[in-house]
């Protein structure tokens, strides 16, 4: 039985990854799961300099999901390379670094700094809804997305994944723009912008007022977008958005995702990633699927 998948020449032992921002760099969840069993660890977004993030409260629960407005708090690329990448070297799993910035120059600085590091792929965050400058501004305009993708591709030594926002009118337009500008793969979806009001305090639940919604409640939106994008571009897709278990993961794969990421569900079940890996194998056995690649995009 083969569970290996390949994205832009990088081979993953299985299609299960961690969604950026929900798994740190694996240290915290390494207490619960064997990181060697994961297809890849996708790290929390890192910028050229430390970012303090947003004021608290930064998280709020919603029906079947949650809102977050962390604001990409990160220690900056130098600490990240010395601490987080060093930590990840101990494991036999692929490392995908999520990169954030306020300007194209910021992104490029991080991308160049990572050139000679033990990093398998770069995931470019142009879709975080919780920071005012950069990030999502690049992800909601096809021209801006195309420009940043092209600039990063010029400098990047590793294959580049552009992470797309669902907060657009037509996600296939963004996907096509990224593909045309040279993106090697796409990941989608980032969180959906939302809001929650505490009626007793007459106040926003989040200090940032709005936040990004994630969790099982958003899954049908994510599956729909993965399907649309898979049928609009020829580059591989890493699908995510509310995946809780193997059944959900397989749904994304059948919609057209080559790999999948577990995000908010790590908070609810710290064993979710490895359970999903095992569940996919079990499903393949039961259904007589010899190669996971057979079912990628099998539902048309």
């Amino acid at each position: 039985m083969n569970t290996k998948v390949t994205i832009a020449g990088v081979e993953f032992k299985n299609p299960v990854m961690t969604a950026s921002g929900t798994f740190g760099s694996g240290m915290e969840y390494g207490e619960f799961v064997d990181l060697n069993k994961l297809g890849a660890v996708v790290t929390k977004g890192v910028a050229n300099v430390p970012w303090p993030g947003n004021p608290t409260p930064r998280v709020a629960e919603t029906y079947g999901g949650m809102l977050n407005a962390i604001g990409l708090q990160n220690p900056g690329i130098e600490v990240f390379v010395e601490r987080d990448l060093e930590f990840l070297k101990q494991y036999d799993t692929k490392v995908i670094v999520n990169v954030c910035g306020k300007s194209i120059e910021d992104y490029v600085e991080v991308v160049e700094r990572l050139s000679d590091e033990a990093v398998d792929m770069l995931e470019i965050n142009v879709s975080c809804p919780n920071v005012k400058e950069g990030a999502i501004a690049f992800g909601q305009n096809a021209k801006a997305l195309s420009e940043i993708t092209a600039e990063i591709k010029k400098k990047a030594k590793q294959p580049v994944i552009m992470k797309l926002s669902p907060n657009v009118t037509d996600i296939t337009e963004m996907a096509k723009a990224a593909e045309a500008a040279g993106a090697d793969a796409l990941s989608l979806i980032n969180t959906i912008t939302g809001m929650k009001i505490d009626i007793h305090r007459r106040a926003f639940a989040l200090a940032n007022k709005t936040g990004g919604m994630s969790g099982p409640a958003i899954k049908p939106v994510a599956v729909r977008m993965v399907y649309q994008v898979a049928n609009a571009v020829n580059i591989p897709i890493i699908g995510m958005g509310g995946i809780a278990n193997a059944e959900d993961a397989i749904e994304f794969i059948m919609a057209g995702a080559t790999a999948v990421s577990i995000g908010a569900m790590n908070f609810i079940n710290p064993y979710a990633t490895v359970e999903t890996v095992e569940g996919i194998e079990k499903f393949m056995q039961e259904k007589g699927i010899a190669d996971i690649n057979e079912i990628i995009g099998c539902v048309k």
Partner: protein
Amino acid sequence: MAQKKKVVAKVFRQDEIATDIYDMWIETDLAKDAKPGQFISVYPKNKATLLPRPISICEVNEEKTMLRIVYRVAGQGTAEFSGYHTGGEITILGTLGNGFSTEKADGKRVFLMGGGIGVPPMLQLAKELKFRGKAQSVSAILGYRNELFLCDDFKSYADLYVATEDGSSGSKGTVMDAIRENDLKGDIIMACGPMPMLRAIKKFAEDNGMEAYISLEERMACGVGACLGCVCTTKEVDHHSHVKNARICTDGPVYDAKEVMI
């Protein structure tokens, strides 16, 4: 530190000990390594309310086979927990957070201060300070809106002082009023309670040259230090964030009051 685990445990018993305040004993081996001031995360069974609820550990039984939590029903999740009965299952993650260090109280006059639903975690601390037997004195100074709970439990381990907002028991006002009214003198404060109380304690400790360790609360998601949802601003750059935003769930919830900007 003991490894964190998510486990399905058994409810040993549960009682409502004041209006909307529930007292639950849980049979779990997580009790083995539990420290005062640490917490567990409790997962609702209802799939609409997914995130775990952080609840402080109130007490550990002598055999270290059970944890006691005392919590207020504040929403759907805690409302669900309040309906659990003896023998029922409860899903928990623990033990989380740093907790109070009892050695810091050695040779000192200790104020254990709890306000409202911040009272419960001070009980295990009072108990451990009593067993350690190295503090010069231990005063439990507890503040309530009006209805008291857990006061009798504290009497076995500490000198008890109570404040109520309406003056129905003890001093009228807050825990700070109880200190003044009883002319209490101490060297070190260990506290948990609402933010205005913790701010008052931080100032009181600074004004009176006392040490203070305070347990902070914030909206949490993962509870294990990955999501960076529950941070507090620190005075100095901390080892993890490098941006003066330490994680309450993992680097806290107990901080030296001097080190946090609240």
